[in-house]
């Protein structure tokens, strides 16, 4: 292993930019990533693990004869950076030319700060106290809490850079905290785990009392689950888990999958694919959510994009490569970590809220299932639309809970589900997530038990 000393990130990027410019490459872009974190987990009244980290990485995409080559390194030494550049250049010989012109600098609005200085004063002792108090509060709330196997609190800081041969130099930094807890309830030999998380930049959102109440409720609510007879019936997906369902199929809206014959939406632009109440947008302007951005990871300015409006498919998500192939302009949805190739992502994928509360959705049917927990996603495929997934929740009759239900699987097809939505909730859950979906009331779901 090398004894050569590492460079600071900005010096490393400047070094690679100079070397790449001298390599005779047509065009290139570089991404840099630097992060640090502080985290702690507790178990059985003690701090169990403490972790601090610092990491860096530089990724190169370079074009020769129109063909892209990629390479990356976590080692910011001159030798490693040069080797990485050589690797990227050598890869251009294998790939096909793609019709890409990297963007030039443009005026973009500045993003409100995503750095909360208050989080930087958070120390290990404060984090430890919060975790131990939370664990104690959870046990104090119910004698039926058997165990708290998962309890952790972390603070992360990230800075990213994007440079290209056309003059773009863009850098952003952000920090955030996250607390998560999983508690096991035990009654009559049956165990159920409840999980609750809080994250974001305002740590006052996470209180010991609030988190303890929520996780205890979730750990106990399904303990008396009873079997039901399988049938096809209406289901209300709680806003706790509705985003997990929609998230499994978002890649169907990526132009890359469409162009490769792996999306069932291929010929559906301008056509109705969902009920008129269904609207799906990609919204980088929601600065309260983690997907906010003024430029995508290729330097293209971002914009709010109506993907599905009034149930009609309006647009696919494009990066520079897919846009070049489709002879259109990028929608600004290029995504890239330093070690991977450019892909596609939503910037805050939002299913727009409807008018009814989750409670009101449960009253839409004489009898339905209210699903609050999902188990596994291996039976779900964005390509086929297949949706077969384990679930737990409640049998509801005339809007009232009858009993908890477990040991069931739900089966439908995602593209059928979009046509069978009969109600959309008016509220998102409280997660700090770039995917927000209200509760969804859906008919005709096959339930096996």
């Amino acid at each position, binding site marked *: 292993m090398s004894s050569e000393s590492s460079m600071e990130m900005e010096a490393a990027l400047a070094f690679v930019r100079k070397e790449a410019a001298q390599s005779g490459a047509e065009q290139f872009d570089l991404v840099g990533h630097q992060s640090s974190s502080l985290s702690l987990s507790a178990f059985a009244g003690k701090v169990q693990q403490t972790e601090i980290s610092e990491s860096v990485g530089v990724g190169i995409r370079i074009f020769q004869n129109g063909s892209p080559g990629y390479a990356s390194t976590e080692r910011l030494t001159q030798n490693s950076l040069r080797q990485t550049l050589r690797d990227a250049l050598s890869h251009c010989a294998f790939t096909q030319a793609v019709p890409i012109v990297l963007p030039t600098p443009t005026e973009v609005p500045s993003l409100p700060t995503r750095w909360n200085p208050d989080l930087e004063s958070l120390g290990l002792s404060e984090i430890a106290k919060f975790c131990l108090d939370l664990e104690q509060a959870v046990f104090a709330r119910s004698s039926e809490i058997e165990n708290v196997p998962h309890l952790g609190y972390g603070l992360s800081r990230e800075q990213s850079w994007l440079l290209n041969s056309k003059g773009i130099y863009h850098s952003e930094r952000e920090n955030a905290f996250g607390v998560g807890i999983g508690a096991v309830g035990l009654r009559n030999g049956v165990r159920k785990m409840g999980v609750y998380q809080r994250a974001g930049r305002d740590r006052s959102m996470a209180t010991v009392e609030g988190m303890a109440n929520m996780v205890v409720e979730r750990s106990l609510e399904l303990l008396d689950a009873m079997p039901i007879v399988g049938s096809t019936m209406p289901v209300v997906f709680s806003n706790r888990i509705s985003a997990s369902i929609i998230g499994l199929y978002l890649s169907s809206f990526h132009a890359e999958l469409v162009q490769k014959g792996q999306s069932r939406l291929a010929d559906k632009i301008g056509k109705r694919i969902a009920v008129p109440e269904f609207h799906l947008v990609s919204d980088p302007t929601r600065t309260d959510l983690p997907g906010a951005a003024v430029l995508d990871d290729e330097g293209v300015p971002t914009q709010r994009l109506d993907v599905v409006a009034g149930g009609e498919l309006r647009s696919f998500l494009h990066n520079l490569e897919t846009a070049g192939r489709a002879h259109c302009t990028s929608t600004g949805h290029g995504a890239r970590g330093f070690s991977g190739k450019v892909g596609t992502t939503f910037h805050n994928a939002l299913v727009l809220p409807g008018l009814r509360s989750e409670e009101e959705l449960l009253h839409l049917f004489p009898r339905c299932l209210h699903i609050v927990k999902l188990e596994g996603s291996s*039976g779900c495929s964005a390509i086929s639309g297949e949706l077969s997934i384990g679930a737990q929740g409640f049998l509801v009759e005339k809007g009232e809970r009858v009993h908890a239900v477990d040991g069931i699987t739900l089966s439908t097809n995602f593209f059928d589900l979009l046509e069978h939505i009969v109600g959309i909730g008016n509220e998102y859950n409280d997660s700090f997530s770039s995917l927000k979906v209200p509760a969804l009331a859906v008919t005709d779901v096959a339930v096996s038990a």
Partner: protein
Amino acid sequence: MNPSNVSLILQTGRDCGADFVELFEEETRSSVLTFKEKTVESANAGTDYGVGVRLLFGTEVLYAYSSDDSVESLVRLVRQLAFGRSRGKIISTSQVSAPNLASDQWSRMRDPRKLGQGFKLDFLRQGDAVARACSERITQVTLSIVDAVTAVEIFNSEGLSVRDERARTRFHISVTAGQGSERFSASEAPGFSGGYEVIDGLDVDALAHRAAERAVRMLDAPYLPGGQMPVVMGNGFGGVIFHEACGHPLETEAVRHKASPFCGKIGEQIAHPALTAIDDGLLPGLWGSLAVDDEGTPSQRTVLIENGILKAFMSDRVGATEVGVPRTGSARRESYKYAPVSRMRNTYIAAGKDSFEEMVASIDDGLYAAKMAGGSVNPATGEFNFAVEEGYRIRRGKIAEVVRGATLIGKGHEILPKISMIGQDSAAAAGMCGAASGSIPVTVGQPHLKVDRILVGGRA
């Protein structure tokens, strides 16, 4: 790393009062070539590098990592990590030894770093052509070959100094068949410990045929009506159910958190007497094999369940101490970015005496889950959920029509006693396992198995 720097960092940890200090340095060179749309879609390579430092105070873990290997940076991290801890427990480190654990296999390896990505092209083109030739309904074929060569050095305050070199190569083919707006994808992904010599040994044609034919076959499959029924589970990747539903709860990482139904059950009958299960890190060339684990402990063959009786947990240093069991060389991590915990290596159910035909013949109405697609488990409750990629209805003791959309659901410790027949046809399959210490290569395996009753999700 320079030995004097190693000593300084270990000593800094001891100066902070740690009972045990460990240094894990890693450099991985990896590359991937992806073939799609009959052309190379992407070529990528990377260097991952960093150092992880672990301090143990009893069984409390303090872990720090950095891509910066300067001694100043690492000493600063150790001091920051142990801030406020007691001092004064200064013990000098022992003389370190430096065993070379490179195996015969290493010396025979065709090194990806020297041969380059061009070596992979013919295999990818061949797989693409064979898959596309299987049917006009094939709409997409994606192939890739990923390789990684890793050098790790592990030092600890007990005097351990180990250097280990690891190479892994994996071939992946995913075939999508389409008819109208219907799509179905099937994949094969064998992986091995070794360099490019493992690609030479691959039967690419057979893998491409298998994936393509399954994608086309499943495209026309009707849905399976769900319900409780007997199931014959396929050999090879069928072992993923044991891995998820029983293997994870047999790791001391779950046991020490009291998040396992097997806590305190060593020596008890937990499965049908016909069942024996093993986790073996020593099987030559397998995807999950290791010379030493990520604490530097030599790997071993660990019998987990023998004739239905629980014999051992898989353990790391901390887990072994807390649970009070021997260390099994099972400490693993994705990279220097994770502290090691107990994890599986190559986990399989040993062959039994029954034949596949006998299992099918014993079922009047059930499911043959020929190929699993993956799944998940909550070790604390034992609840699992697995999708069936390729399934067949069993009717009156015979394999009948192909069915799609099946999901298996249950609790691991409740299913074990219901495994009543175990086949003679063991097979293994490579996979990636995600847990507390990241995503690591593992092998799952089993012969065909009959489970007397399990909930199968489907569509009426």
